[in-house]
């Protein structure tokens, strides 16, 4: 009989780990453990993790995560910014807290294609000025939020228009920036990485 080995919800296990964030100063690794709806912390050299966010099953309550995707650790505030996929929002979870607070998207977990909504947010990035960028997968766009604002603006792709020409995206999964703040987009179903030059 076939059995599954090695994955689970122990503190040394994952179920679909989707994103890692490494703190370069300490070497600490943070992992979004998607299928366990939690974020785990691994100090360098330690393969047993410590729960730092979620872990209360999938759901939309503020003490839960709902398939966490990308994570960003903001050392200044000692908190995570988390792409909370099925809640269709971006949340902040301070280490030591048992709840998140809303950063962007809808508090009631509804999806949408307005400037303040998401549909399956997958990737995120935060620049040195605290501005937020989100790979809004099912709206097939990249959204920009000035620090502290909840109204986003589209900087790559066109909302709801899937495609593979140079102005369109096909379900972006992740975003990254180089030192000049040029934008890179993993255009997953376009099977390419697109670069959008800052000018």
């Amino acid at each position, binding site marked *: 009989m076939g*059995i599954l080995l090695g994955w689970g919800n122990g503190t040394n296990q994952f179920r679909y*780990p989707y994103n*890692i964030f*490494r703190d370069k100063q300490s070497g600490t*690794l943070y992992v979004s453990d998607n299928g366990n709806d939690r974020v785990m912390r691994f100090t360098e050299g330690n393969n047993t993790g410590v729960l730092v966010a979620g872990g209360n099953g999938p759901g939309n309550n503020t003490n839960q995560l709902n398939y966490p995707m990308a994570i960003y650790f903001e050392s200044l505030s000692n908190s995570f910014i988390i792409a909370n996929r099925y809640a269709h929002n971006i949340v902040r979870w301070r280490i030591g807290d048992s709840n998140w607070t809303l950063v962007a998207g809808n508090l009631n977990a509804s999806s949408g294609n307005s400037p303040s909504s998401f549909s399956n947010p997958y990737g995120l990035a935060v620049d040195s*000025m605290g501005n937020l960028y989100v790979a809004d997968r099912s709206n097939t766009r990249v959204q920009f939020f000035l620090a502290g604002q909840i109204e986003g603006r589209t900087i790559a792709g066109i909302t709801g228009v899937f495609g593979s020409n*140079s102005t369109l995206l096909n379900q972006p999964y992740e975003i990254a920036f180089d030192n000049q703040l040029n934008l890179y987009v993993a255009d997953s179903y376009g099977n390419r*990485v697109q670069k959008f030059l800052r*000018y």
Partner: protein
Amino acid sequence: MRVNSFFVDENVTLRWNTTGITVAGTPNAFGNASNQLYNPWGLALTSENTLYVADRYNNRVQKYLRGSLNGTTVAGQANATTCVSYQCLLYPSSLALDDNENLFISEERGHRVVLWKKDAIFGELVAGTGTDFVVYV
């Protein structure tokens, strides 16, 4: 071309060209040739703009020197095969580089995080206990 400017303060203007340039992969032609990707996910960049891409369904990580569309496989197998060993990856999902270009990789279906040191031909376990290969016992 649409122009979006975001004036953060008097010194910083944020705006991006809305026409993208392909820097890895062949649009709409997935595959495992060196100039192809198959459902890319995680990205990582060095200070020299070397780009690393988690090439999810190809079970590998590709590295692109700035300006090159030909990737070299730096983790997993170039021909996209997977296996139950630290020479293979199973659906790599995200990447993190340290300052020496050692590469931390999460594996969506490997259910683990591994470290591939620069120029290594196999990874080392960092966290997690295993894959979701079905093991018959």
